[in-house]
């Protein structure tokens, strides 16, 4: 069994080589810039620049927007996934396609269209005032940025969650409710625990990139919101201070990777031992156990 596992690990070899060649080495290039000053001497000042008031503020705003958007995406995605789940199987794939299709239109075109909808004299306000309400002042605000990010990332949250729970048979859920479980407890005790790995992927795909993306903030936020991505971009282009840009980038990466390593410990690894029948049995936390029992 252990030999089998070693063999399976080998499957990652092409990716390991690929990521060394095209992710890790380019990363080293960036890190070299990050730990030197403009004259090429070793310096940590670029990394420490992360804590200057301007940069720290941009970082906190990015964190705030990314967090809010991730939470909204999760809250919108679960009911959506539950609705799609209720459909017949072939309709299910059809509907999923429908939800992803908007993403295939170019990002900038979608954002400019969204701006036309949200702007002061925009389409939304035409409808709102047409109905006799006060026009909304959404344009160039944080709210508009959040709408934009949620719009762009919602399908990326939905897909992984949907995948993890699409296989739960209707019979399982019916059995659970026949045994007296309320729909809410079916959701919290069966569906939610089953979907955790998908949720984690979804959170990574939404939260992580939205920390550094700034185009949405520039278009929908009217350039009034400065994200850490703006600053990094500016250091690289306008001021051509690659050292500082790399330093900020490396510090951000460090922060995020450390932050994420905690989440890895919390909810990914415990699911492993369940499958390592032969491996050393680590303790599986309650949630996982319940879900498996519920499914079995």
């Amino acid at each position, binding site marked *: 069994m252990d030999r089998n596992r070693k063999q399976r690990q080998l499957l990652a070899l092409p990716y390991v080589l690929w990521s060394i060649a095209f992710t890790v080495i380019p990363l080293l290039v960036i890190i070299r810039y990050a730990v030197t000053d403009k004259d090429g001497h070793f310096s940590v000042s670029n990394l420490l620049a992360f804590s200057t008031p*301007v*940069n720290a*503020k*941009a970082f906190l705003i990015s964190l705030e927007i990314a967090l809010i958007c991730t939470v909204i995406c999760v809250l919108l995605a679960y009911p959506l996934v539950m609705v799609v789940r209720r459909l017949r199987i072939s309709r299910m794939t059809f509907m999923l396609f429908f939800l992803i299709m908007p993403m295939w239109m170019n990002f900038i075109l979608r954002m*400019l269209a969204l*701006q*036309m909808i949200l*702007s*002061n*004299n*925009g389409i939304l306000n035409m409808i709102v005032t047409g109905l006799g309400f006060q026009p909304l002042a959404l*344009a*160039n605000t944080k709210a508009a940025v959040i709408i934009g990010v949620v719009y762009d990332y919602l399908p990326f949250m939905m897909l992984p969650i949907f995948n993890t729970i699409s296989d739960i048979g209707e019979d399982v859920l019916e059995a659970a409710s026949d045994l007296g479980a309320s729909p809410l407890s079916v959701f919290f005790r069966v569906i939610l625990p089953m979907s955790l790995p998908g949720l984690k992927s979804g959170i990574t795909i939404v939260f992580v990139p939205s920390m550094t993306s700034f185009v949405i903030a*520039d*278009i929908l936020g*009217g*350039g*009034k919101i*400065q994200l850490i991505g*703006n*600053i990094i971009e*500016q250091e*690289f*282009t*306008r*001021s*051509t*201070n690659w050292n500082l840009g790399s330093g900020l980038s490396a510090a951000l990466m460090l922060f995020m990777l450390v932050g994420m390593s905690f989440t890895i410990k919390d909810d990914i690894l415990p699911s492993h031992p369940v499958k390592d029948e032969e491996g050393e049995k680590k303790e599986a936390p309650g949630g996982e156990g319940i879900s498996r029992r519920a499914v079995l």
Partner: protein
Amino acid sequence: MKKRILAAAAMLLCLPLGACEGKNQPARELTVFNLCEYMDPKAIEMFTLETGITIKYEEALTAEDMYTKYKAGGIDYDLLCTCDYMVRRLIAEGEVQPVDFSSFEYGKNIGQRYWDYATAYDPGNKYSLPYFWGTVGILYDTTKVHGPIDSWDVLFNGEYSGEIIMQNSMMDTYIVALKYLGYSLNTTDEAEIRAAQDLLVAQKPDVSAYLVDEARDEVVAGNATMAVVYSGEAYLGREYNPNLDYVIPKEGTELWIDSWLVTKNCKDPDAAKQFLDFLCREDVAQMNFEYIYYSTPNEAVLNGLSDEERADEALAPDPDSCQNSEICLQSDAATTELLNELWKELRGN
């Protein structure tokens, strides 16, 4: 359809190899690096038809993006089109080679006035060929303003609070404040720059948005009353909304010129010169002018304009309206760094 996709995929794999093979053939080729949407594609086709020289053409969003990619050295560019202060920088770094523009057949089409402007960043006109130029000014909706617009003052006096759009780019924002305060936009005096910063910080609550590319459309659509824009954008804006007008404020502004350069490693300087000469030719310059609608330094084209067009400040600013204006040179590193820090502060405020 499927075949096409397969063909494209195959092309994708073969291109790097194909490029290597091409080097053995005597066919002449130029690699041209231009700013976005800055040449009529038909002009390129025409040049290849006439001379047999093929053009590999690439575009960059900004002068800075172009600099980054050029400096990396991965591609041997022959010709660059970039803005004034970047020309100065590339000359200072020895990246370009001198060109004898007097030998050009159509070089005389470029008016003396523009060669004179260009001496600010290219003394003696040794390296750069002026291509298009313009100013930075205010595009405003005549139906929404309460009085004459002729000064930067309207952006700072609070009268149009919430209806103003500023540029989301460092220099284009600071030049406005510096010029309004009566300073040179190339100032290196920290006190003057900080005064400009105070002004911009105080102005921020009145600003509806800081935009680059969408500034013009916001005024056209009526979402804002006025915007700081480049003159070429203003011309386009008025095409869409006749109620708009453009003004170069009386305090003066930035005068910008984009020019062509031949790189120091240019493989075929004769072909490069041929291309630049071709761009000065009346019909080609006319074609590009109609494609870009920025101010042209080509007098053959200017002479063909209607009186109305020639009186248009957005299209052909006369020397008088440019009197107080300067070309931005981004002189020294310390000043650029200070501006950069202040700009981050302003945006994060």
